C-alpha cells in the first residue's frame, strides 16, 4: 500500500520508443531472415535493442544510486521481476506439457493403443517407445523417410557409464552454482564484499562451464549420434527444451556477470542490491527448470 508520498514518476523518456523500434525491426528482420533473406535488419534491430537496454539499465541504476527510488518503487521492481519469472515458468510449462502429451498420449495412440487400433491403417508396424528411435515415417517409408530417428539418445546410460554421462555433470555444475549464488547473497548480507565478489564470480564461472558442456553435448549429438532437430519428436523435444534452457542460462550468466562487475564497482549494499537479487532469482529459476529437464528429458526415459 502506498505509504511513501514521494513516488518518483520519471520524466518523459526516449528509451521506450527506441526499444519498441528495436523490437519491431528485429521482428521484421527475423521474419525475412528465416526465409532465407538477409540478416541485416535483424542485426540492426538487435543493435538498437542492445544499445537501448544498456542505456535503460544504466539510467535505472543511476536513479537508484542517486536515491531517487522510494521503497515503494523498489517494491514495484520486485513485483515486476517476480511476475516476469512467472511468465517464463509458463513458457517452459508449455514445452514440458508438449513433451508429456507426446510421450503419454500421442505416441501410444499412433501405435494403436488406447482405443486407437485403427492407426494401423496409416502406420502399420509402428511401435511407440521413448526415446523414439524409429519414427512412424521410417516404419512406413523406409529410406525415403523425412524424419529419421537418432542412432543414439541422451538417456541414462546405465550405472557403469554414470560418470561419463554429461548431463549428470551439468546437473552438478548447475546445482553448485545455485549454492554459490546463495553464498554470495549471504556474504552481502553480512557486509562482506570480498566474499560476495568471490562467490558471485565463481557462480558466473560455473554458468560458463555449464554452457561449454552443453555445447559439447550438442556437437556430440549432431556429429556422432545422428540426433538433430530433424530426427523426429525425440530430437525435437530434446533440443527445444534443452535449447531454451541453454538460452536462459546464457541470459542468466550475462545478468550475473553484469552484477559481478557492478559488485566490483561497489554498487551494492546489504539492504539495497535489487539488481543482484533479481539476477539470482532468475538463476534459481533456471536451475529449477534444469532439475525438471534432468528428470523428464534425461532420467525418466
Amino acid at each position, binding site marked *: *500500500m*502506498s505509504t511513501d*508520498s514521494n*513516488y*518518483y*514518476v*520519471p*520524466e*518523459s*523518456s*526516449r*528509451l*521506450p*520508443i527506441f*526499444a*519498441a*523500434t528495436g523490437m*519491431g525491426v528485429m*521482428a521484421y528482420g527475423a*521474419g525475412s531472415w*528465416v*526465409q532465407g533473406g538477409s540478416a541485416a535488419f535483424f542485426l540492426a534491430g538487435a543493435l538498437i535493442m542492445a544499445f537501448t537496454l544498456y542505456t*535503460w539499465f544504466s539510467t535505472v541504476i543511476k536513479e537508484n544510486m542517486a536515491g531517487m527510488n522510494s521503497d*515503494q*518503487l523498489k517494491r*514495484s*521492481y520486485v*513485483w*515486476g521481476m517476480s*511476475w516476469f519469472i*512467472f*511468465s*517464463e515458468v*509458463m*513458457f517452459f*510449462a*508449455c514445452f514440458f*506439457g*508438449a513433451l508429456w*502429451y*507426446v510421450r503419454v498420449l*500421442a*505416441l501410444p*495412440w499412433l501405435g494403436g493403443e*488406447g482405443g486407437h487400433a485403427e492407426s494401423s491403417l496409416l*502406420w502399420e508396424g509402428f511401435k511407440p517407445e521413448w526415446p*523414439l528411435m524409429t*519414427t*512412424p*515415417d521410417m516404419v*512406413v517409408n523406409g529410406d525415403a*523417410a523425412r*524424419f529419421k530417428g537418432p542412432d543414439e539418445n541422451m538417456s541414462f546410460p546405465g550405472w557403469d557409464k554414470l560418470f561419463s554421462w554429461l548431463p549428470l555433470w551439468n546437473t552438478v555444475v548447475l546445482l553448485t552454482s545455485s549454492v554459490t549464488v546463495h553464498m554470495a547473497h549471504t556474504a552481502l548480507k553480512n557486509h562482506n564484499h570480498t566474499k560476495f565478489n568471490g562467490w558471485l564470480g565463481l557462480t558466473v564461472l560455473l554458468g560458463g562451464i555449464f554452457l561449454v558442456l552443453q555445447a559439447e553435448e550438442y556437437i556430440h549429438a549432431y556429429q556422432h549420434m545422428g540426433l*538433430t532437430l*530433424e530426427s*523426429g*519428436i*525425440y530430437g*525435437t523435444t530434446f533440443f*527445444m527444451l534443452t535449447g531454451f534452457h541453454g538460452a536462459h542460462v546464457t541470459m542468466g550468466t550475462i545478468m550475473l556477470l553484469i552484477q559481478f562487475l557492478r559488485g566490483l564497482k561497489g554498487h551494492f549494499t546489504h539492504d539495497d542490491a535489487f539488481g543482484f537479487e533479481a539476477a539470482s532469482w532468475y538463476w534459481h529459476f533456471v536451475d529449477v527448470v534444469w532439475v525438471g529437464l534432468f528428470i523428464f528429458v534425461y532420467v525418466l526415459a
Partner: protein
Amino acid sequence: MAHGPAKGIGRWLFTTNHKDIGTLYLWFSFAMFLLGGTFAMVIRAELFQPGMQLIKPEFFNQMTTMHGLVMVFGAIMPAFVGLANWLIPMMIGAPDMALPRMNNLSFWILPFGFSLLASTLFMEGGGPNFGWTFYAPLSTTYAPSTVNYFIFGMHIIGASSIMGSINIIATVLNMRAPGMTLMKMPMFVWTWLITAFLLIAVMPVLAGAVTMMLMDINFGTSFFDAAGGGDPVLFQHVFWFFGHPEVYIIVLPAFGVISHIIPTFSRKPLFGYSSMVYATASIAFLSFIVWAHHMFLVGMPIGGELYFMYATMLIAVPTAAKVFNWISTMFRGSISYETPMLFAIAFVVLFTIGGFTGLMLAIAAADVQYHDSYFVVAHFHYVMVAGAVFSGTAAVYYWLPKWCGRMYNETMGKVQFWISFIGFNITFFPQHFLGLAGMPRRYADYALQFSDWNMISSIGAFIYGASQLLFIFNVIRTIRSGTPVSEPKTWEGAEGLEWTVATPAPYHTFATPPEVK
C-alpha cells in the same frame, strides 16, 4: 513532476504518463476496430449473395483471419488496457502506474506489431489465411511464407501484453492509497488484477505455440507432424490452453466496467461485491481447465470429452452469480437511462444470450452439429461484440466527461445505441439459424438454401457498421466542442476516487495519496 504535458508529438512518443498512455491505447484500439470492422464488412459484402462477387476465396480466408486477429489482439485487448491505464491509478489513488517507462514501451510495440501483421497482406503469398486459431499444419507446412512475419509479430504483441500485465499487477498490489484494502478495491480494478494474472499465465504459452510453428516450418522439427511422432492435435491443445483463458481476458474487464455503470445509474451500491470478486476469481480458475471444449471433434477419448464438458458447464455457475448480482443491483434502484446505462443493460441481455449458446456448445454431443458452424460465430459475437464492444462503448461514454471535461451529445448517444442494438441483432441472430441449418464457418461461398439469412445478416452488419461512424463522430465532437463540465462528479450516482478529482482529470492525480476510509 508538478508540470503538465510536454508539447508536440514528443508528448505522445516519450510520455510516461498513465493518462497519455491510456489515450494512446484507446485511439490505437479504435483504429484497429475500424480496420477489423472494415475486414468484417468485406466478409459480409462477399457473403451478401451466393457466388464469388468481390474477392477470391484465398483473399476471403485472409480477411477472416485478419478480422479475428485484429479484433481480438488489436481492438479489444488494447481497448481495455487503455481503460486500465486511465482508470486504475485514479481508482486506487496512485500517482501513476508502477513502471511508467515500461508502460510506454508496452504501448509502442503494438503499432510495430500490427503494421508487420497488416503489411503481409501486400506481400507475395498474401497475409495469414489460416484462421485466427491458426491450426497446424495449415499454418505450418501449408502456409504462405509470410507466416514467419505473423509469428514474430505475435511474439512482440505477446511481449507487449505481458509487460502491460506485469505493470497492472505491480500497480494494483503496490500502489494503493492507504486504507484501500483489497476488498475495498473497485470492481474494475479487481477484474483487471485477475485478467492481468491470466495474461501473464497464458501469453507465454501462445509464444510457445508460435515458436513450435516456427521450428516446424523452418528447422525441420516435428511437433505437429505425425510422421515424426508428433501430432497436429498437440497444436490445438497448446493454442486453446491460451485461447480459452483469452476469451475471459476479453470479457472480465468488461464485467468490471458493467459493475460500475449499473450501480451508478441505479443509484444503489453494487449488490454482492464480495461474491462478485469470488465469482471473477472462479471464472479465471475454471478457464484454465476447460480448453478442450473447442476440440470435441478431434477424436479425444470419451473420458476426456466428458471431463471437458462437465468442467465447461460449471462456468455457468459463477457467471450466473454475476448476472444475478447485476439484476439485484437494479432491483429497487432508482434507474435512469443515459447512454452508458443503455449499453450496459444491452450487455447484460445479449451477453446472457451468448452465454446460453455457450452452454449449448459445451454439450459435447450437440457440439457435433454446432462445431465450426455459424452457430459458433453467433455465440462468440454475442459475447464479444455485445459483451466486450458494448461495454467498451459504455465505458467511453461513461468516463469521457471525466477525461476531457466535456459532455457528449446524449441524443446522438441514444440514437447510436438503438442503431447498434438493432443492427447487431439483425447481423448475428440469424447466424444461429444458419449454423443450425448446416452452414459451416469460414466459407467464402455457400449453398443456395443459406442465401436469405445471409443477406439479412449482411444488411444488419452494414447498419451496425454505420452506427460506429456515429460513435466516432460523437466522441470527436465531444472532445473538440462538447459542453464543458467541471464538477468532479458527472453522474449523480457515481462512486469512487476517480469522481473525487477535478474534471477534466488533471495531468497528475494523487501526488499525495488520498486517505481511504
